């Protein structure tokens, strides 16, 4: 592209120039005009661009035109140069062709709005709408690059009432480059409090154009009654294209401002975008039936009270908590709680607010009041009252907590009949005896092992690891052994069943000696482990001795009896 333009400049230098026109001849800062230089011939001849202080010249296009006149052809070549002023004023562009008249460009100061009749506007306004007009219910800025909306749920409210509002800033990506300052209300009748620190981001399509939308949540508080228009103003920096309006179609096709920058110059401009004014009516709080303890709280609230303990000793500090929950102007929620109680000494309460939403409209305010019982026995703490104005029902409300009963016992010092102490004093001693009066045992020689810490050994992690590891080790071994036995049972490897199988095999084979030998081993092993000898075991031992020297197999009944005995003893041993 650069090489092509250089060739163009060289070619134009020597060509016969037919005409040079400037349109429009009156623009404002931020816009541009077009200088069209027409030369004869199909070939591009080099032409020198004029140099004027305060004006920038840039070749943007060229085209060739061929006309047939009386069977003859006339070919002209035109070069379009964009002229962009850097400041307001009247500029004279010297004649491009020899003996041609100079051209005059008048540049007005920036007004933030397009110059009437100028083909060179800023960014292209949305199609089908004039700049600044309402489009889809949204009022765009003059250059069509941004909009601000103040969304309020209701139009009439009371002084002091907190009204949640939503502020939307819409901007065309790439056109708006910076947010230059805080959001500001027009007028002093309202305050904008607790703007959410982070804006929510979204994208909205407005008449076929993509707008990024930043949404803030806040609360609006009217400070005096009356009817007031309210709007919000946001300072922005926008990037304005200096391309002629007729080329705006290309802008729309390209869409991406980065691409547009390759085809046309842009300048930055600071603007203020203002939302359409909303007419709001603020009513004063009614003076009729205003409760005595009303502190200015407007909203909807609930209250509850609690005591950390329901029993204490005389002189012990207790903390009474009052919880106020709901929605409204929590900065005006206040309570003196309990004052001048019989049997109690009370102190001024303190409060802490914990919001449950970003704007602080909803949440819980907790009041804490130290109380000290001065008399023993069942002491009553009366109900705590709280008054507020409820805008939903348009009247004052007073809510009460439940009364509380606390069991107060005498101070321990009084219970043990200690010598009477001074009021508010805990046994202040008399004078400390002098050194001579103290009969101390003598010092010890420096000896013994030193320790780095006085923390008991059982609380030190390094030591605790030892018994813990041991306990885990034993627990693991216990469960390991248990699992092994269970698996042996499951796989039929039960040693009891194995011994019984061998005994039955000996019985079936008619081997009396083997039968009695196996039976004796099994039974004597169990008896030895259990530390008990039975009559049957001794009888079995005698029979075995006899069977050793006898060739006869015992009778069937005897086999059954001794097999059952062995089975029973083996199972006893296993279960023990």
């Amino acid at each position, binding site marked *: 592209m650069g090489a092509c333009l250089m060739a163009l400049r060289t070619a134009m230098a020597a060509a016969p120039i037919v005409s040079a026109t400037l349109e429009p001849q009156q623009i404002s800062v931020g816009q541009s005009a077009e200088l069209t230089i027409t030369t004869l011939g199909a070939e591009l001849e080099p032409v020198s661009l004029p140099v004027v202080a305060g004006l920038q010249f840039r070749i943007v296009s060229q085209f060739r035109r061929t006309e047939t006149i009386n069977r003859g052809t006339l070919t002209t070549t035109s070069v379009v140069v964009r002229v962009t002023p850097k400041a307001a004023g009247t500029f004279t562009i010297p004649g491009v062709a020899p003996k041609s008249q100079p051209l005059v460009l008048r540049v007005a100061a920036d007004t933030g709005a397009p110059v009437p009749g100028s083909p060179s506007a800023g960014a292209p306004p949305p199609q089908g709408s004039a700049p600044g007009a309402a489009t889809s219910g949204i009022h765009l800025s003059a250059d069509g690059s941004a909009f601000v909306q103040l969304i309020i749920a209701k139009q009439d409210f009371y002084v002091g009432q907190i009204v949640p509002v939503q502020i939307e800033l819409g901007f065309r990506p790439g056109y708006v480059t910076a947010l230059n300052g805080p959001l500001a209300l027009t007028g002093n009748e309202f305050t904008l409090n607790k703007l959410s620190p982070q804006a929510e981001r979204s994208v909205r399509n407005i008449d076929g154009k993509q707008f990024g939308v930043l949404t803030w949540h806040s609360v609006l508080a009217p400070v005096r009654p009356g009817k007031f228009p309210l709007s919000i103003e946001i300072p922005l920096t926008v990037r304005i294209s200096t391309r002629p309006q007729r080329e705006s179609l290309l802008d729309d096709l390209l869409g991406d401002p980065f691409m547009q920058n390759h085809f046309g110059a842009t300048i930055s401009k600071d603007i203020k975008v203002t939302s359409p004014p909303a007419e709001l009516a603020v009513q004063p709080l009614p003076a009729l039936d205003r409760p005595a303890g009303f502190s200015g709280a407007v909203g909807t609230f609930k209250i509850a009270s609690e005591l950390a303990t329901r029993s204490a*000793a005389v002189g012990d500090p207790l903390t009474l908590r009052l919880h106020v929950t709901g929605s409204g102007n929590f900065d005006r929620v206040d309570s003196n709680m309990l004052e001048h109680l019989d049997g109690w000494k009370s*102190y001024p309460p303190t409060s802490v607010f914990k919001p449950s939403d970003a704007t602080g409209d909803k949440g819980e305010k907790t009041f804490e009041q130290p109380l000290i019982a001065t008399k023993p026995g069942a002491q009553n703490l009366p109900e705590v009252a709280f008054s507020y104005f409820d805008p939903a029902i348009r009247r004052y409300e007073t809510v009460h907590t439940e009364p509380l009963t606390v069991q107060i016992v005498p101070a321990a010092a009084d219970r043990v009949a200690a010598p009477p102490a001074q009021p508010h004093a*805990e046994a202040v001693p008399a004078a400390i005896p002098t050194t001579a009066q103290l009969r101390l045992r003598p010092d*010890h020689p420096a000896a013994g092992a030193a*320790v780095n810490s006085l*923390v008991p*050994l059982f609380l030190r992690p390094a030591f605790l690891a030892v018994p813990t590891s041991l306990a885990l*080790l034993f627990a693991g071994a216990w469960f390991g*052994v248990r699992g092994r036995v269970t698996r042996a049972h499951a796989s039929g490897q039960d040693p009891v069943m194995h011994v019984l199988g061998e005994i039955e095999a000996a019985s079936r084979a008619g081997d009396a000696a083997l039968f009695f030998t196996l039976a004796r081993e099994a039974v004597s092993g169990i008896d030895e482990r259990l530390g008990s000898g039975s009559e049957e075991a001794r009888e079995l031992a005698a029979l075995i001795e006899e069977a050793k020297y006898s060739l006869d197999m015992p009778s069937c009944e005897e086999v059954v009896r001794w097999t059952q005995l062995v089975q029973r003893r083996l199972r006893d041993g296993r279960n023990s």
Partner: protein
Amino acid sequence: MRRLLLTATLLGLVLGASHVGAEAQTGYTAASLYNLGNSFARAGRPGLAVLNYERARLLAPDDADIEANLRAVREAARLPNDPPGWFRHALTAADAVAIAWLGVIGVLLFGGGLLATRLRWGHRAMGGAAVVVGGALIGLTCANVMLLWPKLHEAVVLTQATPARVSPVPMGETLFVLPEAETVRMTARHEGFVLIRTRTGRAGWVANADLAAVIPGN
């Protein structure tokens, strides 16, 4: 299995003992704390004297000199000395370190006895005896821990006429005044103040600077 258990047990005991032995190079000794207590007592600082005696008593609970001087200083400060019961004395008079290790041995005997019975190692009666003895040692250690537990939250008042306030702020109203050398129980903390409870049951907020925990760091 038997070898594995023995090896792991011995390794644990050696590591634990080496840790305890490793720290016994510098730091507190019962004698140095006792002597420090004597020095403060002679200098007329009963709070610091009682603090050091209490700390010395943690390391040498059966030392009669520490006990005697602690009682002398407390009596001189007009503070009551309540004699401990025989059970408490028996449990706290023993060296806490030795009792802690007895607890470890108890775990060994208890677990080993149970396992031996299950695996039928040796005589059944020996396994049962090991379980019983191990359980008794564990119980002894637990009782000692329970009796020492309050010491973790004890503090000694270091300054004369220390105000106990109604709330944890310097300008809070004074509920009562604590004498120097009084031993109190710490129950809560809040921004430079400690909620204390005296032996007579009274409670109030005392500035951190006016107290010292018997066990540093608590």
